[in-house]
């Protein structure tokens, strides 16, 4: 009697165990398949870019065999771009604009977030909400009014106008991330620092910035992405090649009329995505941590 009860119990347990294991197996398969589809979808374009960039113009226009394979790999496209003064100019402009944009945006948003989250002055609540609301205004709506402003400043066709424009796009979101981060730092930490003898700036520099480093890195990556990848504003505001940045420089220089120099365009794209790849690879862990922490606390 008791033996049969035990048997039945074992059988039930085994069945349950089986079904659990089955479910796990299905979940695994499901996620592998889904992830596989995504990986393919995301990696096909870069792969195609790479293949095309390694082909000579002759091979591209010949259109023989599979377009996915290179028969006579060559670095001539890359070599051409590296030694091409215009391309060097675009690259340099992009680097200058991005470094300045990131620095300006980070200084503004860290200071703004610190005062908004910690100093609790009159209207600080409303102000932090409206900072975030400005982020929701699509940049494409702003570029006509901004064109007027930039025109009055005399900065049309001058890449310095981007150093003014990009922070207006990056600062709201960066501030929002940083407010979330700073708010998660316990109040007692500032009070301890105040008692220990720190002023507000020392508190920011010695306590808040080091403690909120993941948030700062996340915000930095965001500002970098905004600046490095922006297309609309430089397209609208810059028209001579000595002022252009990479995004517009590549298409305006390498597309002549209806002649698309595909190999060079693709090589230029690869060269242009080098800095983001390097930066993401180094800061990815921080970036993910930063996004989630900012999201739940903000």
């Amino acid at each position: 009697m008791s033996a049969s009860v035990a048997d039945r119990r074992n059988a039930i347990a085994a069945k349950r165990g089986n079904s659990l294991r089955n479910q796990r197996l299905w979940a695994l398969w499901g996620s592998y398949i889904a992830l596989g589809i995504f990986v393919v979808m995301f990696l096909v374009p870069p792969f195609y870019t790479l293949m095309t960039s390694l082909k000579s113009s002759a091979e591209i226009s010949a259109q023989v065999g599979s377009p996915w394979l290179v028969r006579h790999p060559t670095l001539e496209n890359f070599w051409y771009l590296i030694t091409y003064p215009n391309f060097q100019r675009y690259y340099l402009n992009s680097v200058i604009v991005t470094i300045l944009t990131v620095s300006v945006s980070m200084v503004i948003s860290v200071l703004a977030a610190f005062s908004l989250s910690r100093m609790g002055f009159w209207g600080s609540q409303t102000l932090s909400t409206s900072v975030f609301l400005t982020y929701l205004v699509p940049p494409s709506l702003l570029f006509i009014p901004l064109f007027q402003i930039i025109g009055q400043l005399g900065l049309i066709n001058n890449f310095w106008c981007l150093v003014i424009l990009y922070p207006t796009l990056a600062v709201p979101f960066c501030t929002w991330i940083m407010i979330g981060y700073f708010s998660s730092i316990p109040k007692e930490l500032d009070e301890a620092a105040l008692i220990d003898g720190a002023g507000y700036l020392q508190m920011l520099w010695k306590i808040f910035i080091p403690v909120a480093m993941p948030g700062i890195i996340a915000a930095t990556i965001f500002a970098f992405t905004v600046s490095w990848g922006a297309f609309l504003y430089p397209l609208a505001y810059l028209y001579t090649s000595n002022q252009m940045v990479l995004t517009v420089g590549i298409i305006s220089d390498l597309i002549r009329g209806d002649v698309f120099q595909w190999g060079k365009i693709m090589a230029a794209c690869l060269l242009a995505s080098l800095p983001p790849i390097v930066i993401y690879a180094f800061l990815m862990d921080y970036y993910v941590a930063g996004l989630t922490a900012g999201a739940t606390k903000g």
Partner: protein
Amino acid sequence: MAEVSVRKVVKEYEGGVQAVKGIDLDIADHEFVVLVGPSGCGKSTTLRMIAGLEEITSGEIWIGGDVVNDVPPRDRDIAMVFQNYALYPHMSVFDNMAFGLKLRKFPKDEIKRRVDDAARILDIVPLLDRKPRALSGGQRQRVAMGRAIVRNPKVFLFDEPLSNLDAKLRVQMRTEIKKVHQAIPTTTVYVTHDQIEAMTLADRVVVMNGGVIEQVGTPQQLYHNPATRFVAGFIGSPAMNFLPCRVQDGANGGLAVRITDSIIVPIPPARADRYGAYKGKEMVLGIRPEHLFEHHDQGKPGWTRVDLPVDVVEPMGMETMVHFFVDGSPVCARIDPATHAAPGEMLPLTADLNQMHLMLPDTGRVV
């Protein structure tokens, strides 16, 4: 080192909450004062006003002979230990302790000497290179204390520093704090809601309730001569028993307290003068569980026998708590564990009426 004075200090938060309603308190140099009271009574607010972290609505705070109302925290020369430690998470233990000294531009070797001294006192020398996240709660608390000690401030402020620790560690750290104060007798204001912590640590205890000070005194004074029913009930564990009663004429021309028709106890002659004016009035009798114990055949003056029906018996090992109901009011007695007591039976008890208190039922003032 300095004395601290709080003069008619009021704190009103935005929205009109009066957290502190005009308190006066003088703390002597080297004194260890504990603010104790139930949650929300304004202890932290008072401490934070002394620290300068909270503005004072009205009144004055003096530290070391100066009014500090408008002095920022960093210039008050105080150190504070917080409930959640508030260690700087990105700094090593050494840097946490050295931070205040570095900001004050102390020379490097002086900083090192002070941190090492404090670390030795607190027994955290091996931890100096670690980050706070690699420390246990007790170790973090030590570091937080170390951060206060190295500054050698005029005043130490503690806000419930032990309430995040488990019971055993709390007792251990309590002793530790007392030892530190004996080694470095800095004026200390210590906030807690644990009356045992208050009694064991304090030179003087300040009992607060609802934003006012109920009583200030040494632990012994508060225990033996509480000024109000609130203090009487707050200090001591288990809490004092309170029974509605009436003062009336007793045998031999003395006074007696009538609790119920069957329980009438004589007031010791030594107290007759004090209670004479309240003859015929409704009062509240207060007596601590430890002054209500098993019956002894040879009594002492002031001891009276009462027999009560046992409700619940709680043996604790060293002693036994027995609970009764007298006319609807719960009563607890602390008896010798060897005494037989069983629920439902009558238990003969001795009430030591030399330790009784009578209070006014409306104001709660002890007479």
